[in-house]
């Protein structure tokens, strides 16, 4: 019977290991308890003993590849025994350890008693004790109408109750019944077409005053439908959306763990723009998409990375992992935040394909229809603020990537060429790199090579389209 050899549990803190050396080779005889391979985990090298006697029929995980513990790394069979089909494919299988344990459930059990009322609405600058807030919430009373009698004007429960006693008629009044207002306010509200029940009153006993109506009418003018008027955001605390939280965490992680260095270069864009204008209609016929300058930039980045693999790397513990594919991500700004879908193998695809993929990815970004893989596969990022008229800017790396390219607006610059004043079309590009992985000279050389491609576009792109 075949025995699976796994990368063993190597103590409770170890999650991954790398086989440094197979002591036994495929087809060799091995005895139970004999050392079969050497594994490195947590900087310690351990010889692993064979779990069975027989022939090491198949090695599934080669040397120097890091895999999680419990991965099946080889198969031992009896002499002459064939191995099952699933091992022939050679795909490492990872065993789930200790199924059935569900720690996250425990977390929820421990916090299950949290009262749902704890998430009380933000209340501006009104100070009120919890019991007062509760009554106000239940009766729909605006606490800002009540003056508090507690320390520092804190609204006490009895303040709310007193207020209610005075205002009972209005509070319990069915909807549609007129709200108390001064005559002036009432006339103004009619003129402006503002329903009085929507106006909170600040006058005596909550009476709506002229000022209240004026304020309400201003709000109405600036507010967009379905959106909180901008002025109401001031002084408020807004819970982060899930996406915002993820962005915040990743960006701080990147900013505080990866030492950034920044480089800038001006690229003369004239010839590239000319080339693009020449081929755009031809490409549109062929690919059904309008090729843009951005597509050239993506392609040029892909090609340049091929020459400078460190710009396609990420840090993994003590190792630098150079990613096998060059997938160039594009930062797309959405209302909730930034998302970075990536164009796969940008060095290999032609401009037409790149353009098509870009249009599709950007569109699906806006519809929220991207797949996780499309978001996570990026190995390098391009961020452009050209459409905002930004001259140049620095960017924080998209972790765990080692480089991000920034694109500024297209500028006309005067320059003296052969004694003549001419205008040049110039864009300033910036490059941020993780200095742990990429040295300054490498980053500079990358940027120089990139610049060269954009400035001599026909030689750079022609054979590759």
């Amino acid at each position, binding site marked *: 019977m075949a025995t699976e050899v796994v990368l063993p549990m190597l103590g409770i803190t170890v999650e991954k290991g790398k086989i440094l050396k197979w002591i036994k080779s495929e087809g060799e005889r091995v005895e139970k308890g004999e050392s079969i391979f050497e594994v490195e985990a947590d900087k310690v090298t351990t010889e692993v003993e064979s779990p069975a006697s027989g022939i090491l029929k198949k090695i599934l995980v080669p040397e120097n590849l890091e895999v999680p513990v419990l991965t099946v790394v080889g198969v031992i069979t009896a002499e002459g025994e064939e191995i099952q089909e699933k091992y022939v494919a050679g795909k490492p299988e990872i065993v789930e350890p200790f199924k059935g344990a569900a720690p996250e459930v425990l977390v929820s059990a421990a916090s299950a008693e949290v*009262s749902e009322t704890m998430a009380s609405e933000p209340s501006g600058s009104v100070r009120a004790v919890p019991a007062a807030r509760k009554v106000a919430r239940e009766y729909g009373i605006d606490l800002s109408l009540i003056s508090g009698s507690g320390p520092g004007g804190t609204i006490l429960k009895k303040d709310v109750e007193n207020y209610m006693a005075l205002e009972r008629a209005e509070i319990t009044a069915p909807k549609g019944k007129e709200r108390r207002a001064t005559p002036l306010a009432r006339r103004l509200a009619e003129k402006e077409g503002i329903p009085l029940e929507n106006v909170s009153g600040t006058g005596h006993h909550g009476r709506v005053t002229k000022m209240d109506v004026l304020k309400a009418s201003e709000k109405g003018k600036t507010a967009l439908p379905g959106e909180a008027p901008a002025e109401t955001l001031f002084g408020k605390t807004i819970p982060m959306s899930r996406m915002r939280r993820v962005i915040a965490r990743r960006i701080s992680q990147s900013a505080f763990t990866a030492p950034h260095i920044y480089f800038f270069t001006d690229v003369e864009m004239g010839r590239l723009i000319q080339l693009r204008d020449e081929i755009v209609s031809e490409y549109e016929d062929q690919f059904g998409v309008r090729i843009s300058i951005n597509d050239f930039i993506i392609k040029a980045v892909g090609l340049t990375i091929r020459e400078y693999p460190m710009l396609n790397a990420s840090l993994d513990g003590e190792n630098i992992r150079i990613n096998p594919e060059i997938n160039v991500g594009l930062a797309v700004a959405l209302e909730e935040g930034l998302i970075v879908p990536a164009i796969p193998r940008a060095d290999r695809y032609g401009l037409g394909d790149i353009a098509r993929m870009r249009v599709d990815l950007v569109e699906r970004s806006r519809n929220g229809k991207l797949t996780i893989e499309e978001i996570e596969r990026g190995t390098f990022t391009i961020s452009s603020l050209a459409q905002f008229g930004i001259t140049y800017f620095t960017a924080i790396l998209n972790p765990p990537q080692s480089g991000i390219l920034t694109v500024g607006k297209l500028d006309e610059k005067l320059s003296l060429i052969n004694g003549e004043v001419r205008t040049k079309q110039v864009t300033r590009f910036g490059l941020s790199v993780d200095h742990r992985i990429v040295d300054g000279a490498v980053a500079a050389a990358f940027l120089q090579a990139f610049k060269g491609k954009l400035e001599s576009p026909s030689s750079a792109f022609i054979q590759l389209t």
Partner: protein
Amino acid sequence: MREITYAQAINEALRENMRRNSRIILMGEDIGRYGGIFQVTAGLLDEFGPERVIDTPISEAGFVGTCVGAAMTGLHPVAEVMFIDFTTCAMDMIVNQMAKMHYMSGGRGKVPFVLRTNIGAGRGAAAQHSQSFHSFFMHISGLKVATPATPYDAKGLMNTALADENPVMFIEHKKLFITKGHVPEESYSIPFGKADIKREGNDITIVATHALVQKSLNVAEEMSQEGINIEILDPRTISPLDKEAILNSVKKTGKLITADEGCVTGGFGSEIAATVAQEAFDYLEAPIIRVGSPDTPVPFSPPLEQFYIPGEDNIREAVNKILEYQ
């Protein structure tokens, strides 16, 4: 009505239980011939002999662990650790053995064992003989923690502790040993996890333990002259804790003060405050105030020590602060 001291009440409970239940033995430093440093076990050696009232070497880990082993094999030991400060020498035995044995063994081993010790400053004994870290044991699951405040409660709670098949930390207060109170001669039990409302009131709830129960009662009495009705609630066991009684009282009064002799930070009052903030938030009409010891070691010099010990002034101050929200 008969009045006896807190120490005598515990002594009486031990004596009565030892007469009824031969599984009970006592172990501790100087508990036999000397009668215990606070005379809680006085006379028990004479009645029950050295086999049941065992003077131990100064070996807290040794004799507390011995009690764990004896409890697992059929006895119901009662250990006296002279001061709560010395439980630190036996912390492995208390936290990892005594408290965990039943759970770790999936219920196969039980530890019916009462560990008596005491808290409290006020005897000029300085930082290693005066601490009040009883709330530490409230944090350890697997332990029950009794905190008697009166002679009556001391006897009733000890009777319950010795009827319980679980480890019990029985935490006395050294300044209370000589206080007198009404204690029935007959046997009675006070259930664990059942708070006692020592005084009823509608305006403010004070959750108090040990010596601060009486101090709170004094302040409440004084305040009642001004028409302020304070409710005093003594949980009597801080684990299990009668959360329901505390929450009900706060729901009635909307205001909470905790009064406990431990240091304020990370202490009993903090736990009560958190519970109330979490489960009775909407009823709160004022901030919660914790009365307790300052976050310093217990100082020696008498004026400093007096300043250290939370007293009626501190409670009064807290009440006045809360009254701003009245």
